[in-house]
């Protein structure tokens, strides 16, 4: 944590009671879950083991918080908590579009609720909040970054992060790295360029912006676009919270699909840096390296799945790794210092690729691009997986992902020379869902647990030899991470809608998960 040293001193004043000690962001979470992924690595692995295989059947419901009841609630009719809560000093902070809550992490009692007055934007979901010192940060669908006081939820300021008239919207959980509040943008209706920004934690002022697509011919990546006009409208939204390696001082940003989404005719080429994992310097926003998960995507397969950081051994060599189970059905392992590809393998059976190129990126089969009369493609638009966070368990060396093997038919709706927006879509489909446990060394699926009835949730693994997931019937399920056998379940009445988290307070380990508009707190109360 040397890199945080000076910052720690400078911000000591911020760490009044209730605030977050920024050193906590780098350490494995125990009494806190201070960021979207718990820590910077994106592993969603907890070293806590008070809840474990031998006592899981004593896990009991400790509290329930229904966000529905709040005045002006983002709950109500159809609300969904897709946010991973952050937990700091015994308080949980979570969001829904236009709303933020603070809830007692021991009792589920509301501490405060904040409602934003919206000017529109897509309200599809909000992934959560970032915390720095005594301040909370979250994005609104109408393109604002809002900073609230942790203790009472009073607004300090709000700053625009995108232009609503261009159909951008905010949904990502901001990432706090040193004195940077890193924000992403969502939106794939009009053909706009994606970007990621860094803001000053005190003032909200812009520190840097990095476009995911080149802005002029001659810029890095422009060789993969036919024209400046195409790449400046080339998409690549930053829907998901990046991960961070403090030693290498790199953030790992997963980028969205290119635009127009389905009809890719007017953007021949690989369309860099869309559908990629990109390493940036968090202080400057300068790109260090990139790896493209889906060159020239035409299936809405963004690569906005968590780039998970861990150290491992590949071919006898110790390496700093980043792994991604990408929406297109491929699992990738890269050296996270250089971006060099070490493994590419299908984690579900797919039908659209002709293999991988020398750099490890898949080679799309043009026949499986969307067609006027339809092309049967697997996975479907939902993808081999989607945004729900995966987990890596260092005890088993396995990477777990909520996966789906699905088919649908992709159509071109707009056959003109200059399609815009989507220009097509996929329809119908059949599929099945499962948890895949992937051996990172080879990319091979070690075990697969198929759900009877669908289900696609975020995952959590713990040192208690437990893997938590949600099925399609509203069950929160604990699986054996060694083989996928279900060990315990509780029916929440609605499917799990976020990634479960865990923390220990006063010697009690809690497990918190959202299903629909409700947060459930489980605990080992004995």
């Amino acid at each position: 944590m040397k890199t945080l040293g000076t910052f720690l001193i400078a911000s000591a004043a911020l760490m009044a009671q209730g605030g977050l000690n920024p050193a906590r962001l780098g350490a494995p979470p125990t009494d806190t879950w201070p960021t979207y992924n718990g820590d910077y690595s994106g592993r969603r692995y907890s070293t806590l083991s008070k809840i474990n295989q031998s006592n899981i059947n004593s896990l009991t419901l400790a509290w329930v918080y229904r966000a529905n009841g709040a005045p002006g609630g983002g709950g109500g009719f159809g609300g969904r908590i897709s946010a991973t809560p952050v937990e700091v000093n015994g308080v949980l902070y979570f969001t829904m579009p236009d709303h933020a809550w603070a809830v007692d992490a021991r009792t589920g009692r509301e501490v405060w609720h904040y409602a934003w007055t919206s000017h529109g934007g897509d309200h599809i979901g909000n992934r959560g909040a970032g915390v720095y010192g005594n301040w909370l940060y979250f994005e609104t669908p109408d393109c604002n970054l809002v900073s609230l006081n942790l203790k009472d939820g009073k607004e300090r300021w709000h700053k625009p992060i995108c232009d609503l008239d261009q159909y951008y919207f905010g949904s990502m959980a901001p990432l706090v790295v040193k004195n940077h509040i890193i924000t992403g943008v969502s939106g794939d209706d009009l053909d706009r360029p994606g970007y990621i920004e860094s803001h000053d934690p005190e003032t909200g002022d812009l520190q840097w912006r990095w476009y995911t697509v080149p802005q002029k011919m001659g810029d890095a990546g422009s060789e993969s676009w036919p024209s400046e006009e195409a790449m400046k409208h080339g998409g690549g939204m930053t829907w998901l919270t990046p991960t961070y390696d403090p030693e290498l001082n790199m953030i790992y940003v997963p980028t969205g699909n290119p635009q127009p989404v389905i009809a890719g005719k007017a953007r021949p080429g690989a369309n860099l840096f869309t559908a990629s994992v990109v390493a940036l310097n968090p202080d400057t926003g300068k790109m260090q390296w990139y790896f493209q998960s889906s060159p020239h995507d035409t299936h809405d397969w963004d690569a906005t799945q968590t780039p998970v950081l861990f150290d491992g051994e590949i071919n006898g060599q110790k390496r700093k790794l980043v792994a991604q189970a990408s929406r297109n059905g491929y699992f990738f392992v890269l050296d996270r210092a250089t971006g060099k590809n070490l493994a590419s393998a299908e984690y579900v059976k797919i039908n659209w690729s002709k293999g991988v190129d020398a750099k490890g990126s898949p080679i799309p089969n043009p026949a499986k691009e969307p067609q006027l009369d339809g092309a049967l493609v697997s996975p479907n638009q939902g993808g081999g997986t989607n945004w729900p966070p995966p987990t890596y368990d260092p005890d088993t060396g396995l990477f777990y992902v909520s996966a789906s093997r699905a088919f649908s038919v992709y159509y071109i709706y707009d056959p003109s020379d200059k399609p815009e927006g989507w220009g097509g879509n996929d329809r119908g489909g059949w599929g099945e869902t499962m948890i895949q446990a992937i051996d990172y060394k080879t990319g091979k699926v070690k075990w697969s647990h198929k759900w009877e009835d669908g289900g696609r949730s975020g995952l959590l693994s713990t040192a208690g030899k437990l893997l938590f997931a949600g099925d399609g019937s509203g069950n929160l399920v604990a699986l054996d991470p060694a083989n996928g056998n279900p060990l315990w379940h509780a029916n929440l009445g609605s499917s799990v809608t976020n990634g479960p988290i865990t923390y220990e307070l006063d010697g009690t380990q809690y497990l918190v998960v959202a299903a629909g508009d409700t947060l459930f707190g489980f605990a080992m109360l004995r």
Partner: protein
Amino acid sequence: MRYGIFVAALLVAPAVGVAQPPAGASEALEKVCGACHSVETVTGQRRTRAEWQESINAMVARGAEGTDAEFALILDYLTTQYGPTAAPAAPAAGRGGRGPAFSPGPADKQVVDEAAANRGRKVYAAECITCHGTHARGSERGADLVRSEIVLHDRYGSTLGPFLKKGHPTQTTPAAQLTGAQIVDLSHTIHQEVYNTLRAALQIQNVVTGDPQAGAAYFNGAGKCSTCHSAAGDMAHIASRMDAPELQQRFLFPGGRGGGRGRGGAATAAKPVMVTVTPASSAAIAGSAITGTLVHIDDFNVALRDGAGEYHSFKRTPALKVVKSDPAQAHHELLDQYTDRNIHDIVAYLETMK
């Protein structure tokens, strides 16, 4: 789809007695759609039945889970409550000042007046088209207006007017002489072109491109379709029961289940998945197998309704034997076998069965 999705709402006077939603429909909407996004995302919009069907199909492809009955209810509900002729959605009371529309884009987005857009189209043809193209997507001579920030920031001519009046080139009338009304009309036309690029504004073109003879050969040969279906029997007149895109979806994804997701096109009642449960020989209802329609199954429980309509529920244990039988299983397996050529040939063949 001729008009943008926001067009119809203003044009048609709000219906006086709004149709009542079908019973259970809002619950189905909440359950199926609310699992992924707030229902306001859906209900902030106005669409025709066909457009709502298209949206539902898109959501199914993205993993929306529900039974055919639920999807049918949702379609009815959305069409009656959020169709083009439905009354504008009232902002829900006490919702922190949130406006009615939570579709993408700003809440105060321009609502296209179709008559004005049609008038504007004439001005556009006279003054702009040679440079900006038929659908305002630009040409070598003029910028893409659909992607223009001046257009996206415009409301009813607010930024377009001042921009043109600065002396923008036109084809006949000097820009300064365009009337305020003409500018408003042009604004509607261009916004309509923007909305026409949105997902919901587009449709499947033509899926009948295959060879019916090759389709017949596949049907009776490699595809083994004829082992379960016959052209003169259950497939007779199938092409007059549904349009070609629907037909393509129906044969690829009949019933549409498996993981609870996916179904092809509009609902016709699917054959149910059956299940046979055999309790352990030591159990109270020892040994005798019970067969019925599968009601629910997960890793821990299974429930069925038997031939007499009785509901049975079981805890799953290693001793409890559960055998599922999905009538569409053969169809699921075919998905790994078809080439796209096979698919187009089959559609062409089924299309002959009018």
